[in-house]
C-alpha cells in the first residue's frame, strides 16, 4: 500500500507542475487591471523611487488644484524633504516577493549575479524564443530594446511588452503604466517556474528513493524513508482518516501530494535568494481550483441536496438560501487560496522589512546607526525565519486538513 501511494503521489507532482506552469503564462499575460496584481503596486512604488521623492507626483496634483492653500504645501514640503533622505524599502521588498524573468542573486545593474532564464512568448507573429533573459542586460525599466522576429521587445518590472509599430522608445503615463506597447502571452520559464521545476525534481527524487526503499525493507525505515514515512503516516492518520470517514484511500494520494508540494515549496522559499512560489497567487489558485474540482466531483447526493434543497428550510427562504449555498462552494477554496498566498507573502515581507531596517538606519543615521541596529535586526530576522519554518509546516497542514475536511463533508452519508 505504501509503495503504490508513493507512486501515485509522484505522478500527481508532475501534474501539479504542468498545470501551474500553464497558469503562469496567463498570469503573466499582462492586463494589470484585472489580475490581483502585486506588480501594479510595484509599478507605482518604483516610479516613486525613480523620482526619489515618494509623494511628489500626488503633491503636484494637489498644488495645481489648490494653489491658494500655501500652508498645506509648506508642510508637505517638509515631509517631502524628510522622506527623500531615508531609504524606501518597499520597491526592493516587492521586487523580492514578485516573479521575475531572471534569477537574481546579488549585486546591482550590470555587475549583478543572476541566472538567466529562457523567455518564451506567443505573439501575433507566432512563437518568439526561447531566448535567454540575459539579452535584456539586466534592464528592467524598458530602455533596452531586444529585436526578435521583427518585434521590439522591452522589459518593464519583470514583464515583457512589445512596442507598437514605429515606436522607438517606451512612454509612460502618470501611474507608470506603459502607453505605447502591448503585452504578449508569456510562457517563459520565470524564476517561480524554475523553482517549481526544482521542487518537482527534488520531490520526485525523494519519493522515488523512499518508494523503492519502502518496497524492499521490512524492518524499521532508514535514511530518507525515516523522515518521509512518519510524515506520510501523520497525513494519513491525523489528517485524512479522521476527516474523510468513507473511502479515504481514494483521496490519500491527492492529499499527500498537496501536503508535500506545499511543504517543499514553502521550505525552498525560505532559502536566501530563492523564489516565492507558494506566495504567488497563481500557484495557490491552481491548488485551490484542484481542490474545488475534487470536492465537487466526489460530492454525493446528500452534498448536492444540502445545496439545492437545504433540509428544514421554509420555502420562502429558498431564494436566499440556495444562492448562499452556491456561493459557499466557491468561497471555501477561495479562502484556501488567499490564506496560503497571504501567509507566505506576509512572512517574506516581514523578514525583508526587518533586514531593510539596517539600510534605513544607514541612510538616516549613517554607519553608526547601521552597526547599532544590525544585531537587533539580525536577531529578529533569525527569530522570524524560525517562525516561518513553523508556518511552512502549519500552512501545508492547514491546506491539507481543510481540503480533507471539505472532501469529507462532500462524501458524508446522509443522516
Amino acid at each position: 500500500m505504501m509503495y503504490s501511494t508513493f507512486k501515485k503521489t509522484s505522478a500527481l507532482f508532475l501534474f501539479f507542475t504542468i498545470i501551474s506552469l500553464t497558469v503562469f503564462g496567463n498570469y503573466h499575460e499582462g492586463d494589470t487591471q484585472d489580475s490581483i496584481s502585486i506588480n501594479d503596486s510595484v509599478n507605482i512604488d518604483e516610479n516613486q523611487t525613480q523620482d526619489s521623492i515618494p509623494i511628489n507626483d500626488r503633491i503636484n496634483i494637489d498644488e495645481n488644484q489648490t494653489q491658494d492653500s500655501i500652508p498645506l504645501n509648506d508642510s508637505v514640503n517638509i515631509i517631502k524633504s524628510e522622506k527623500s533622505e531615508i531609504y524606501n524599502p518597499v520597491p526592493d521588498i516587492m521586487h523580492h516577493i514578485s516573479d521575475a524573468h531572471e534569477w537574481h542573486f546579488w549585486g546591482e545593474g550590470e555587475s549583478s549575479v543572476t541566472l538567466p532564464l529562457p523567455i518564451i512568448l506567443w505573439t501575433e507573429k507566432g512563437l518568439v524564443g526561447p531566448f535567454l533573459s540575459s539579452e535584456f542586460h539586466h534592464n528592467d525599466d524598458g530602455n533596452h530594446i531586444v529585436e526578435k522576429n521583427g518585434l521590439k521587445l522591452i522589459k518593464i518590472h519583470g514583464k515583457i511588452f512589445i512596442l507598437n509599430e514605429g515606436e522607438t522608445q517606451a512612454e509612460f503615463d502618470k501611474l507608470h503604466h506603459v502607453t505605447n506597447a502591448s503585452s504578449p502571452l508569456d510562457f517563459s520559464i520565470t524564476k517561480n517556474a524554475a523553482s517549481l521545476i526544482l521542487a518537482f525534481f527534488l520531490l520526485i527524487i525523494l519519493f522515488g528513493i523512499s518508494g523503492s526503499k519502502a518496497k524492499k525493507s521490512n524492518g524499521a525505515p532508514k535514511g530518507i524513508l525515516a523522515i518521509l514515512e512518519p510524515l506520510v503516516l501523520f497525513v494519513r492518520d491525523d489528517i485524512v482518516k479522521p476527516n474523510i470517514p468513507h473511502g479515504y484511500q481514494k483521496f490519500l494520494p491527492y492529499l499527500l501530494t498537496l501536503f508535500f508540494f506545499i511543504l517543499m515549496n514553502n521550505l525552498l522559499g525560505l532559502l536566501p535568494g530563492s523564489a516565492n512560489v507558494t506566495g504567488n497567487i497563481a500557484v495557490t489558485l491552481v491548488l485551490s481550483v484542484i481542490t474545488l474540482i475534487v470536492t465537487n466531483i466526489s460530492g454525493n447526493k446528500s452534498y448536492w441536496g444540502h445545496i439545492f434543497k437545504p433540509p428544514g428550510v421554509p420555502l420562502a427562504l429558498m431564494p436566499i438560501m440556495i444562492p448562499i449555498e452556491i456561493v459557499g462552494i466557491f468561497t471555501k477554496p477561495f479562502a484556501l487560496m488567499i490564506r496560503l498566498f497571504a501567509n507566505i507573502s506576509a512572512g517574506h515581507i516581514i523578514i525583508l522589512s526587518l533586514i531593510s531596517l539596517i539600510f534605513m538606519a544607514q541612510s538616516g543615521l549613517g554607519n553608526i546607526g547601521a552597526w547599532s541596529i544590525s544585531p537587533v535586526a539580525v536577531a529578529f530576522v533569525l527569530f522570524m525565519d524560525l517562525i516561518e519554518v513553523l508556518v511552512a509546516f502549519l500552512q501545508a497542514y492547514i491546506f491539507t486538513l481543510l481540503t480533507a475536511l471539505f472532501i469529507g463533508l462532500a462524501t458524508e452519508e446522509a443522516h
Partner: protein
Amino acid sequence: MDAGITIDGIAAIGAGLAAVGAGIGIGRIGGSALESMARQPEMMGDIRTNMIIAAALVEGVALFGVVVALLQG
C-alpha cells in the same frame, strides 16, 4: 486623486485593524483551548486540531484585510 495621500494611511489602518481583530479572535481560541485541555487532558489531540482549524479560519479573514491593504497601498 485628491485623496491620494490619505488612501495610503487608510490602507495601513485597515491592515492594523484586521490584525487587532485576528489577535482578539486567535487569543480567545487559544485561551479556551488551553482551559479545556487543562480540564480534559485526554481530549488534547482533538482540541488541538479543532483549535488550529478555528485559528486558521479567523486568520484567513484577517489576511483578506491584509491583502486588500497590500493592493491599495
